[in-house]
């Protein structure tokens, strides 16, 4: 249980940074402060209603109030939300069920293309009808279809892949994930379904007349760009809410327990009557479904999809979020997604700008023994370019110092390495032959 004064501190920090952000929506420090308060709400224990209220106030008041002055904020948080939903989906597969999936971006791609093809003129290339499908119900219908399509693909990939264990499963999912990208790249012939490497654009967005009139009533005038930024922000928040709810329910359900049992000891789980194949397929399909819906939202938000958005790096990035946050932990997956996105599009960029400014002003760092003039700093030193390297370093440091992630799964209270004698003594050789 967290003492009350810590919650009060978080509330005060949230209010302070929040007001600062509304006053200066373009500066980085208040923004980081607001995210710090959000992280804190997610990471401390106890006082649930209070933490919930602070987080809601930040998400529904502070960020929209600052965001209407600075579109980029919505963009950033929406991006975080999309990744958070995918991290939550992958968390089911990797964290709960213990199946290392390196092709997760494939499901995102299927969701994205589901709407992209029918929400643009693309579908007219291979079928007759009036495309794009504009009008309000279509986007939502196709988002639901994206969920189904992704879950189906998850089952389809899972059927052969889930016969394998551990590293072999990782390799096969990696390969099948690439197959989906390569298909998207090449399905412009003989029938043009995906428009190949050029990608599909423009993609329809659902009409948001209601939101624009609401903004007008509040005296906010930012045109459709701001309207859509706010719309996707709210939509992603709503979907995240649903995803988290589903995750929490699953975690405590028979399904969740079966997933964890399979992860912990497949032989024992089978002896308890848990079908490994069916259980793993369920995990695969559920995880894929979350990714699918976010794919559809992503394609509408970006107005453009191409195979380039669904690379192996994408899958690895989402995996990094799950590992960073803590495998099997719902809050961990969200925090991991926020941290990695923030690092990618905000912190590294700000740090690059900061170094560039020091370079331009010729700032001299004088430490007595050594002094360094930043004007001599090479142009090549630009942290934003080292994204992957910095990622790698962070992941290595995590593995050394906090192997179960920032917010370890509640079930992982057992210290690392403190396995029981019995586990070590269990004969690994006596497995059923594959």
């Amino acid at each position, binding site marked *: 249980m967290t003492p009350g004064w810590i919650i009060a501190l978080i509330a005060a920090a949230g209010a302070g940074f929040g007001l600062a952000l509304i006053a200066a929506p373009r500066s980085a420090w208040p923004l980081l402060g607001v995210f710090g308060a959000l992280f804190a709400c997610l990471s401390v224990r106890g006082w649930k209603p209070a933490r919930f209220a602070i987080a809601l106030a930040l998400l529904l008041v502070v960020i929209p109030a600052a965001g209407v002055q600075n579109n980029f904020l919505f963009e950033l948080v929406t991006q975080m939300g999309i990744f958070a939903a995918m991290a939550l989906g992958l968390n089911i597969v990797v964290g709960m069920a213990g199946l290392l999936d390196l092709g997760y971006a494939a499901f995102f791609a299927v969701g994205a293309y589901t709407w992209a093809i029918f929400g643009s003129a693309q579908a007219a290339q291979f079928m007759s009808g009036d495309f794009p499908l504009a009008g309000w119900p279509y986007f939502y219908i196709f988002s639901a279809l994206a969920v189904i399509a992704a879950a189906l693909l998850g089952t389809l990939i899972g059927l052969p892949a889930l016969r394998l264990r551990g590293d072999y499963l990782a390799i096969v999912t990696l390969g099948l994930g690439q197959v989906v990208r390569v298909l998207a790249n090449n399905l412009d012939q003989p029938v043009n379904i995906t428009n190949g490497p050029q990608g599909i654009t423009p993609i329809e967005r659902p009409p948001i007349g209601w939101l624009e009139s609401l903004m007008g009533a509040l005296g906010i005038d930012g045109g459709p760009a701001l309207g859509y930024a706010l719309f996707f922000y709210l939509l992603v928040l709503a979907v995240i809410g649903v995803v988290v709810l589903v995750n929490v329910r699953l975690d405590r359900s028979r399904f969740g327990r079966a997933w964890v*049992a399979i992860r912990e000891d497949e*032989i024992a789980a*089978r002896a308890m009557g848990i079908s490994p194949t069916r259980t793993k397929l369920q995990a695969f399909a559920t995880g894929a479904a979350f990714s699918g819906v976010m794919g559809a939202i992503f394609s509408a938000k970006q107005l453009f999809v191409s195979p380039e958005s669904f690379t192996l790096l994408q899958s690895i990035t989402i995996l990094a979020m799950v590992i960073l946050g803590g495998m099997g932990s719902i809050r961990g997956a969200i925090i991991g997604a926020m941290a990695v996105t923030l690092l990618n599009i905000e912190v590294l960029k700000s740090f690059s700008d900061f170094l560039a400014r020091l370079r331009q002003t010729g700032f001299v760092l004088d430490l007595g023994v050594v002094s360094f003039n930043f004007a001599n700093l090479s142009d090549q030193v630009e942290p934003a370019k080292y994204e992957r390297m910095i990622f790698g370093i962070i992941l290595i440091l995590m593995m050394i110092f906090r192997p179960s992630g920032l917010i370890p799964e509640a*079930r992982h209270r*057992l210290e690392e390495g403190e396995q*029981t004698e019995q586990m070590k003594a*269990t*004969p690994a050789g*006596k497995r059923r*032959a594959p």
Partner: protein
Amino acid sequence: MSALSQAASNEAPLLELREVHAGYGHIHALKGVSLDVRPGEIVTLIGSNGAGKSTVLRCISGLLAPRSGVIRLRGMEIQGRQAHEVAALGIGHAPEGRRIFPKLTVDENLDIGAYLERDPAVIAARKQEVFMLFPRLAERRRQDGGTLSGGEQQMLAIGRALMQNPALLLLDEPTLGLAPVLVDTLFDTLKLLHAAGKTILLVEQNAWHALRLAQRAYVLETGRITHQGSAAVIADTPDVKRAYLGGD
């Protein structure tokens, strides 16, 4: 080779094995094992290390598919079925090495044991029974399985199998690595289970204890049944005495 020749009762067996052969790769672990377990009895399978005792249980519970032979539960052939299907038919297996879920709490371990039961009231009632049998588990229900002592883990493994409410309980070396005083306690508990009408097939190295508890016994040597009969008779057989009971 009729196992019925020495049968004391005419009751139909709950479990029958007929000429079961099984192995791992090039190792031929079981070379034609036949045995019966009748409802309500405790049958023990004794033998030295590597005789194939665990393999017999793994074949019954579907963790290993036999190469040939027939396994019947209530007259229905079950050999070669998947383990989770066999569990649904009413066989509970507390496997070799306990295999509890170390990162899950005692409660969660037991809940997974009742995976096939959907009615929360039934699950709660079964859990109460398990806690009556093993009060230590009730004390530690919020603790991670991995933090329990060896004896408690064994109780958890048996309790978890009982959560399935199995028609037949397969116990694989439940006393392995336990202090002598705990061995006695455990056998007392098994006696209680027997009194409650449970049917148990017990694999043990601790032949002396097992033969005093069980009604009937089979001796397994390098994949073959060498002796079978009532436990008291087996305990008096000179070969068995010499090999397993430390007698002359």
